[in-house]
């Protein structure tokens, strides 16, 4: 598979075309905005956390296929997870995207998200994929400043 095919896999293109959980959430008890100042992409992540568990998660925003697919897949993975599990997953995803980790060595940890590992071969695109994750991390921590990929 070429690097390009690895980046734009069917699953990613599908999440881009029909993003899951793409909506505002009126009853969100945590919410954070994220910006990538380099390209102007922005995303808002909504969380409904009940007893330390992510009961519901959604997002809205504008960005490229990678950022949209990454956000969409993130929402499907994090729904039902505990806050601490979500934090751990953020760390793992971050490692994978920056090429520090090896997704193949612990696929059970990343599950379907491993498909995003192709991004690590495109340094200019890493921040596209990590924007939603930085944003959810910021929402989990209850930060009030918009998250930034910088």
């Amino acid at each position, binding site marked *: 598979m*070429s*690097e*390009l095919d690895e*980046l*734009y896999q069917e699953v990613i*293109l599908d999440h881009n*075309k029909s993003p899951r959980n793409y909506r505002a959430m009126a009853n969100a008890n945590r919410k954070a905005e994220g910006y990538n100042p*380099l*390209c*102007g*992409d922005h995303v808002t992540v909504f969380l409904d956390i009940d007893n330390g568990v992510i009961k519901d998660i959604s997002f809205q925003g*504008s*960005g*490229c*296929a*990678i950022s*949209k697919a990454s956000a969409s897949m993130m929402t499907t993975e994090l729904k039902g997870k505990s806050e601490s599990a979500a934090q751990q997953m953020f760390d793992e995803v971050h490692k994978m995207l920056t090429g520090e980790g090896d997704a193949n060595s612990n696929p059970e940890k990343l599950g379907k998200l491993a498909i995003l590992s192709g991004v690590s071969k*495109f340094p*200019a*695109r890493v921040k*596209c994929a990590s924007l939603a994750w930085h944003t959810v991390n910021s929402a989990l921590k209850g930060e009030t400043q918009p998250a930034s990929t910088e």
Partner: protein
Amino acid sequence: MKAVPHMADSLPPRGVFDVARIREDFPILKQRVHGRPLVYFDNGATSQKPQAVIDAIDRYYAAENSNIHRGVHHLSEQATAAYEAAREKTRGFVNAKSDKEIIFVRGTTEAINLVTQSYGRTFLTAGDEIIVSAMEHHSNIVPWQMLCGQVGARLRVIPINHDGDIVMEEYRRLLNEKTKFVSVTHVSNALGTVVPVKEIVDLAHEHSVPVLLDGAQAAPHLRIDVQDLGCDFYAFSGHKVFGPTGVGVLYGRAELLEKMPPYQGGGDMISLVTFEKTHYNVLPYKFEAGTPHIAGGIGLGAAIDYLQGLDWQQVEAHERELLSYATNELNKIDAVRLIGTAQKKAGVVSFVIEHVHAHDVGTILDQEGVAIRAGHHCAMPVMQRFGVPATARASFAFYNTIEEIDVMVQAIHRVLKVFG
């Protein structure tokens, strides 16, 4: 143009632009990217450098390196002469009256900041108005907003129409007795529009309002004549006119520059310093505190020599052909929409592809060796105006070819296939 020896029978007919020979002057263009020949269409971001510029910088560091305006020794005299020769070349390049009016800065951004902080803070007060256009680069918006915050002035914006042309009636309406400065781009970086700056200057001058022209995108494509334009300030960057990064030019009318206080304090900008009082140096040194980018200035001089050696009628005809060919080819693709369709444009095509974000376009084109810019082009208000988050932008230089545009169009078809 650097004289390249050629066999007589390989010379092209007179009046035909020999792009293949021009490309020989730019070593970077020979490389391959992801296994494909590089197609460099990101000239609006920065242009490539001819060997003559690379050699001039190399020669300076290898044989002339020394500080300027201060040494009595041989090397310093040589470096000073080379640096000041570059200033004179720059004067000729924009046809300023005097080389006193040529201030070397880091780039267009610093040139504009110099004017806002020196002229603006001295001569503008609360309630004054500054006019910019809706298609300015952030560097011709933010320094003015900062000035507004400092002195209590107000920023007014000339709208643009759907083609990306300035709405002149609105500009006329905005000009009033409160207007104290007009600062507009000569060529839009995001849309390619060539702005009728002469008319803009004339109208401002009817109200005795000074005008700065942001020439960052104009200088690589048009012949600049500041006396003919009648502008009070003209700013451009060395690296966009085939020279090095880190050096740029502010042209200012001497009469205004004389009245303005220094922008930064330090060495070289003084004539006498005591702890009681400092006397400032004469123009242009008053505005050039500290050791400047000497190699950059010399490199810019070499770039200007190179440009002056080209036949500009041919260059402009070639660039027109690139623009119209690219425009036609992109218009043939249904999913592609051009952003910026002004009557008068420089070699820039900004476009969006239906349902595909510009970054994805940029990444896929890159895999085909095609370098374009994808994003908001530091002109977020322009993106808002056209209701798009970002565009893909191909910006041409005279060393680009029709065949390269074909490669880009093929690559766009690959984008459509991936996102089918």
